[in-house]
């Protein structure tokens, strides 16, 4: 059928795209700031973290509660579900100085924190 022909064409275009993109991406790798963050009893510890401006940030989040949580930040454009008792890595792109709030979507009122970029 023509559909399989079409699919292979799409795959080819996609492969081309990925090849050209990965060639570019290796050129712009930057060293990131690493931040440890834990989540326990519906609270972030520490509640405020900081990072230098204009460098990517990697947040290593430990969910110490038994329940799943969703790390979310509207300003940082991050949403990540972290299962109970497990770790997660959250990549944040280089940011301008400012205060960026984040929270647990499942406990939006109590579980809040902020990333301060200086």
């Amino acid at each position, binding site marked *: 059928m023509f559909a399989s022909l079409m699919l292979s064409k799409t795959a080819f275009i996609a492969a081309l795209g990925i090849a050209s993109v990965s060639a570019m*991406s290796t050129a712009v790798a930057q060293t990131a700031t690493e931040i440890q963050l834990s989540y326990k009893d519906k609270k972030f510890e520490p509640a405020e973290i900081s990072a230098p401006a204009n460098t990517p940030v990697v947040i290593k989040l430990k969910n110490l509660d038994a329940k799943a949580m969703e790390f979310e930040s509207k300003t940082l454009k991050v949403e990540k579900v972290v299962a109970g008792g497990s770790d997660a890595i959250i990549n944040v792109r280089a940011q301008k100085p400012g205060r960026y709030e984040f929270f647990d979507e499942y406990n939006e009122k109590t579980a809040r924190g902020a990333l301060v970029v200086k």
Partner: protein
Amino acid sequence: MLAALIIVFREVFEAGLIIGIVLAVTRTVPHRNRWIGGGVLVGVLAACVVAAFAGALSNLFAGMGQELFNAAILTVAVVMLTWHNVWMARHGSELAGELRSAGQAVVEGAKSLLALAVVVGVAVLREGSEVVLFLYGVLAAGGDSAWSVALGGFGGLLLGALICVLTYVGLIRIPMRALFATTTVLIALLAAGMAAQATHFLEQANWLTAMDTIVWDSGWLLSDSSFLGRALHTLIGYTDQPTAMQLVVYLAILLVTFVLMRIYGSPAKAMPEPAHG
């Protein structure tokens, strides 16, 4: 209970919109309920499996398993939606006309239905796994509030289903001929939006770092986390801070769809069929 309702509704909302559109698109196709229903069922089951292995999934690919998984299933949906549009360009008139009961149309229709069933399944899987994880966490924690939260979650599911019905009813009020034209555009935009979302996940996973500058910030005008912003995010891929790569991917999918529809959109009899593969 209200918080649970809102959380679950937010997750189910997107799937509800997509299922509503798919139901409207396949209005004239025989056996569509079986296929779409199957897509939902498989999606729910797969969501439970994904939720059960959420921790393990997340740990894959240096902690980026979740992002890459999302990017992969969105890509599957994009391919299926594009395939459907191209298929409709070719066979849409047969289905719209009196030929819809003809044997050939039924057989052909099943192929497009499979593509759309996959899209539905993937949408349910993606949103559903988060709902399962959330509700499971609540029930596992026990206590008095667990049942009220579960009740809230159930209410959220019902509201999500209501969105699906409203989308469907809204679309089927459009006359048949205009419905095809409308849904073709809608599905092309839906596919482009999903491709841009997949791009976002790849950027989150640091697998895609080229052209990651934010092109504009329209958050002051319409935040993509507001209700309207979320609806537009699902429907046309609206995001208030798109990266250059997201825009390029978005436009590329629209262009590819347009070109493929032009190439394969000619009436079936005018072109010999390539071998089935």
